[in-house]
């Protein structure tokens, strides 16, 4: 399934040739659109020539509907695509600054490179200026690194932010773009005094085609968490069957007392059970919120170990599958769940894991003390009495390479 790890598959040389060829396509299209010509680019901001708007947004909706269609059909793994991480305020402030630079200089970095390629001297000056500006940034950024790294939301998508299915957002973006094209053409007619009757009528057909494809994307839907699990089930199910990811309460205790790992405990039981008893620092998460949890976990440091917890193992195993399907690294399951934990730490019963049916909390409590009880945070000396096979091993962090530098 696309995308492909081309550097691993073909080696660096061929991979870089592929990028070079893609770049060629990029540069050629920009030139053909007339973007080596700075007055044409600037005219966008005087409503005379909306080429920039038309090219940019047509490109965005074209790529977008194809990406989501391919993803919905299981041809492309959207989760493996580079989605620019959101640093909200640096993005907005940087964008404003770029807008100023655009209208003063008449280019953006990409178009200035193309202008340079066709011998435009203003393009050359702009590119030199850009390099200088980048140099200044590099020398000064560490002084305000805190600001520059602020408002980080990780791999936040519009569909996650709005809480809507991707297909709805895709359709919405297509409709918004078509509206902007129509509006842009009216502005061109008024300010640019362009005669619109010379434009090809085919563009209306094109508009309908985009709406049609967006509707198809909407109906095809996008892969559910079960779809994502099924893709990796063959590889990952044995880990469950061979009990390689179910950790003994003693191992969880050692993680709690360890400085080496950043431990995150996800308790997927209902509120009632959680309030009766939960392990200190275990966070309660509903099964349907696991997608957002996975997103959050992605942004945590590389030494983060996640342990899913329920009363026995039924729900926590399901949660484990979901988190692994969302590419969360270092996820484990508390073997025997809260029931076994309490067997060991409340009742001192260290015999091997009992087999329990269902997912019911089988210990009684007089009051709902949550984590305000001894068994919620057992003392480290317990570790001396317990025997278990440690299973936690940190996966090597695969650094997803991408983005502009």
């Amino acid at each position: 399934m696309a995308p492909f790890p081309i550097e691993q598959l073909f080696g660096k040389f061929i991979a870089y040739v592929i990028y070079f060829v893609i770049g060629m396509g990029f540069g050629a299209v920009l030139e053909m659109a007339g973007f080596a010509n700075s007055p044409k680019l600037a005219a966008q901001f005087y409503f005379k020539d909306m080429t920039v708007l038309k090219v940019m947004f047509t490109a965005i909706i074209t790529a977008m509907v194809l990406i989501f269609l391919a993803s919905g059909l299981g041809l492309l793994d959207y989760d493996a695509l580079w989605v620019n991480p959101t640093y909200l305020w640096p993005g907005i402030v940087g964008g404003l600054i770029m807008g100023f630079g655009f209208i003063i200089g008449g280019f953006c970095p990409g178009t200035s490179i193309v202008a340079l390629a066709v011998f435009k001297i203003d393009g050359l000056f702009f590119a030199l200026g850009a390099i200088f500006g980048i140099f200044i940034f590099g020398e000064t950024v560490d002084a305000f690194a805190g600001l520059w790294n602020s408002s980080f939301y990780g791999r936040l998508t519009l569909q996650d932010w709005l809480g809507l299915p991707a297909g709805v957002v895709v359709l919405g973006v297509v409709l918004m773009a078509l509206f902007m094209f129509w509006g842009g053409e009216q502005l061109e007619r008024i300010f640019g005094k362009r005669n619109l009757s010379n434009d090809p009528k085919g563009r209306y057909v094109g508009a309908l085609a985009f709406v049609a494809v967006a509707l198809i994307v909407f109906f095809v839907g996008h892969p559910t968490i079960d779809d994502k699990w099924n893709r990796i089930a063959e590889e990952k199910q044995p880990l469950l069957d061979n009990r390689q990811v179910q950790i003994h309460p003693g191992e969880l205790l050692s993680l709690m007392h360890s400085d080496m790992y950043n431990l995150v405990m996800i308790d997927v039981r209902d509120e009632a059970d959680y309030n009766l008893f939960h392990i200190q620092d275990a966070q309660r998460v509903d099964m349907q919120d696991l997608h957002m949890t996975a997103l959050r976990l992605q942004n945590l440091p590389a030494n983060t170990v996640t342990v899913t917890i329920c009363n026995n193992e039924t729900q926590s195993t399901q949660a484990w599958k979901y988190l692994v399907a969302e590419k969360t690294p270092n996820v484990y399951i508390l073997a025997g769940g809260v029931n076994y934990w309490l067997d060991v730490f409340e009742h001192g019963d260290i015999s091997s894991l009992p087999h329990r049916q269902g997912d019911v909390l089988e210990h009684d409590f007089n009051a709902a003390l949550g984590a305000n009880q001894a068994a919620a945070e057992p003392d480290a000396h317990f570790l001396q009495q317990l025997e278990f096979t440690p299973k936690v091993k940190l996966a090597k962090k695969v650094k997803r390479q991408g983005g502009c530098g």
Partner: protein
Amino acid sequence: MLSNKPKPYMNPYLAGLLLGLVLFGAFFITGNGLGASGGLNRIIVAIEDAFVPDHVDRTPYLLKMAGGDKKPLDNWIVFLTIGTLFGGFVSGVFHGRLKVETNKGPNISVRTRWILAFVGGAIMGYGARFARGCTSGQALSGGAVLSAGSWAFMFAVFGGGYALAYFVRKAWN
């Protein structure tokens, strides 16, 4: 090669469609979108690393790209950027648009245009790294995959441009 008869530009919707296909192709094959400022960034860092490697090793922002043994030019975006340059050139040749000239508004001199281009470029370059990408890397690529930050960025770019447009109108009109 230098022709006197430049061919007219392509219809913008068609150009956008083609650009969208290139962008989709990039994502489909490699998982990455397009970009430009990153390439320029790495070029300047490589130059710095050649002259003042110790300074690079002491500056956290530069360290990530060129610290120690790291080769800043050993990165996909650099090759994409070189390809962009080459593709623009080839298209210019085919369409008879290779011409040494300075494009500018009718009411300013060539010299003024050069200064504005440099200043605008500097502001742009700074802003692009501040935003962690430019219109190619953030707006086009991030926009297509629905990154929330990229969309916010995109509107900010247009907003900034329109906000300042009146004040620099003499440069273009």
